[in-house]
């Protein structure tokens, strides 16, 4: 093959990737519009557009139907924003963990970070809330997401202490420690389920099945800012992760500071998951399936896989949430049920079509 024809092939590949990413952006845009426009309350499309235009433009304020405006601006709005950033965070950290550990099964759930966050939330609901009320006379609203985040962080610190003994992160030990951590968190949750009352039990289900229903601007905005920051850092590691897929020694010889990169991916990945889980509970399968779908579309180059995973993850969560909201009207389903219900069979279908998932081990 001549040098010229090779460069044509490469530029064609590049074009195909750009086109795919553009299509994914369109998918995300459509799902945001659907998320804002569709729901149990039927709002005429024209009203939706008018209300949205007013929200985007602070200089115009027309009067709208109060109920319709509230539903779009403070029910669907925060929900859609939370969905996009959560989906992006889960998918990107999943993609990063898969590449870092060179394991197609790695996802935030596998190394115990999601479980750590959810368990901390559960501990707070069953034990902490009462303590807070007896100390301050009320339970602060932020205490729950904050404890979930602390739980994720604690899980990471524990993992890190175990895995970082000889100056580097041992991938195999990390996965095994993750399994132990998951089991431990599972039994802590089990104990708490035993001593919880009916109301607490319901909140526990929320945390273990996931839901976007609790989104409110005052908690979504800080988490959103944090996640955007963390996600951009993770996305910027694409080149380094490409080198990692050759092997750690190879990455080192290519001039990457292996230790530092491993550390920052584990910490920022955990932060992303912790912040996402803090508001939504555990939403399964997104971190696992989205990167694989993206790799099937784009190939394994992490410079493309990471941003594309962020976009696709956000869109996919919104579509799942749409199902969650309208499937069993006038009640609502937990979104984690939907993501697993759609995610698992789709994943099997992908497996049957192509044994090799574009990720070499």
């Amino acid at each position, binding site marked *: 093959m001549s040098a010229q024809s090779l460069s044509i092939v490469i530029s064609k590949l590049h074009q195909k990737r750009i086109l795919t990413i553009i299509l994914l952006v369109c998918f995300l845009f459509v799902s945001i519009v659907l998320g804002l426009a569709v729901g149990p309350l*039927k709002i005429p499309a024209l009203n939706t557009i008018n209300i949205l235009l007013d929200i985007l433009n602070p200089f115009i304020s027309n009067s709208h139907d109060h*109920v319709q405006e509230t539903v779009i601006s403070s029910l669907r709005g925060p929900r859609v924003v939370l969905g996009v950033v959560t989906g992006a965070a889960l998918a990107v950290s999943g993609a990063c963990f898969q590449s870092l550990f060179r394991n197609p099964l790695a996802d935030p759930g596998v190394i115990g970070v999601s479980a750590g966050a959810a368990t901390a939330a559960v501990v707070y609901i069953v034990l902490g809330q009462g303590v807070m009320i007896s100390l301050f006379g009320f339970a602060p609203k932020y205490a729950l997401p904050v404890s979930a985040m602390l739980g994720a962080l604690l899980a990471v610190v524990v993992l890190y202490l175990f895995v970082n003994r000889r100056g580097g992160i041992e991938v195999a030990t990390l996965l095994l420690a993750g399994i132990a951590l998951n089991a431990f968190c599972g039994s802590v949750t089990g104990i708490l389920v035993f001593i919880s009352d*009916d109301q607490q039990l319901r909140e526990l289900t929320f945390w273990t099945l996931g839901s976007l*229903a609790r989104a409110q601007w005052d908690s979504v905005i800080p988490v959103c800012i944090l996640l955007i920051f963390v996600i951009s850092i993770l996305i910027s590691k694409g080149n380094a992760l490409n080198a990692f897929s050759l092997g750690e020694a190879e990455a080192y010889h290519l001039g990457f500071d292996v230790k530092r990169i491993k550390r920052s991916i584990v910490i920022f990945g955990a932060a992303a998951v912790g912040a996402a889980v803090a508001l939504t509970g555990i939403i399964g399968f997104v971190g696992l399936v989205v990167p694989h779908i993206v790799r099937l579309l784009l190939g394994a180059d992490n410079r493309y896989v990471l941003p594309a995973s962020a976009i696709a993850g956000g869109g996919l969560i919104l579509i799942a949430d749409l199902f969650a*909201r309208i499937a069993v009207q006038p009640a*609502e389903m937990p979104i984690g049920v939907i993501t697993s219900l759609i995610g698992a069979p789709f994943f099997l279908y992908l497996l049957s079509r192509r044994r090799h998932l574009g990720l070499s081990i």
Partner: protein
Amino acid sequence: MTKGIEMGLRINKLLIIVVVYCLPIYSFAAERIVSIGGSITEILFELELQNKIIAVDTTSLYPPSVKSMQNVGYMRALAAEPIIALNPDLILYQDGSGPAETIEKLQAAGMNVIKISHEPSVEGVVNKIQEVSHAVDKVTQGEALVSRIRNELVQLEHFLSDVETSARVMFVLSFDESSALVAGSETGANGIISMAKAENVANGFSSYKPLGAEAIVELAPEFVVTTHRAVKSIENEADILDLPVLQLTPAARNDRLIVMDGLLLLGFGPRLATAANELAKALYSTK
């Protein structure tokens, strides 16, 4: 634009005047009620407002005709937008429904949301009836219902007046071979047991706990009370006392099993006095 606001204000003023003027004649009677909490729904039926209910929650199971109504899901896992979409003019919810965010969102959307207190006791039921009847503007009917319940309670007291030693009762919510889910203190079952002048043997812990056979032998209940639903899976009701988990109790020795309707027994709604009467008769008529 300021003109528009001025005009709006003027119209608002006019509206307020009209509304205030009309208040003595027209007081609010809800036409589209969402009822969240089984006992609230029962009270609305007692107040003959069943035609005004547009949706209930999954804890609303009595009277049986509620099962054909729209259902907004479990009272502690409510979603805001679907309820808003039903366009209700009154949402009554039992204290403890939620999540809190959903209630806040309903309020933010301008829904007429009223919290009804929930306390598993006689006074709690009276308060509940009064609060509901105020909210739906049926105060007289509400008072009539309260005095009917009080009458039934006087009858109960009369019936119980010659009971000297209270029966030792264990309430079981569900069974399997090796354990039983037993009601401790701070449960509806505990409340109804004490109303029937009996002693809950499992008052050493709060809420419902699964107990094994040994713990149950230790409690030594004279009566086992359970619900029709709990015994549904077992062909012959009497066989329950032969389950390993219960067979060593005094209740099993003397064949004292009381099976009642769980909704009646634990509902703490307008049928409270009926439930307490029924339980008391089952406990003490045999003596």
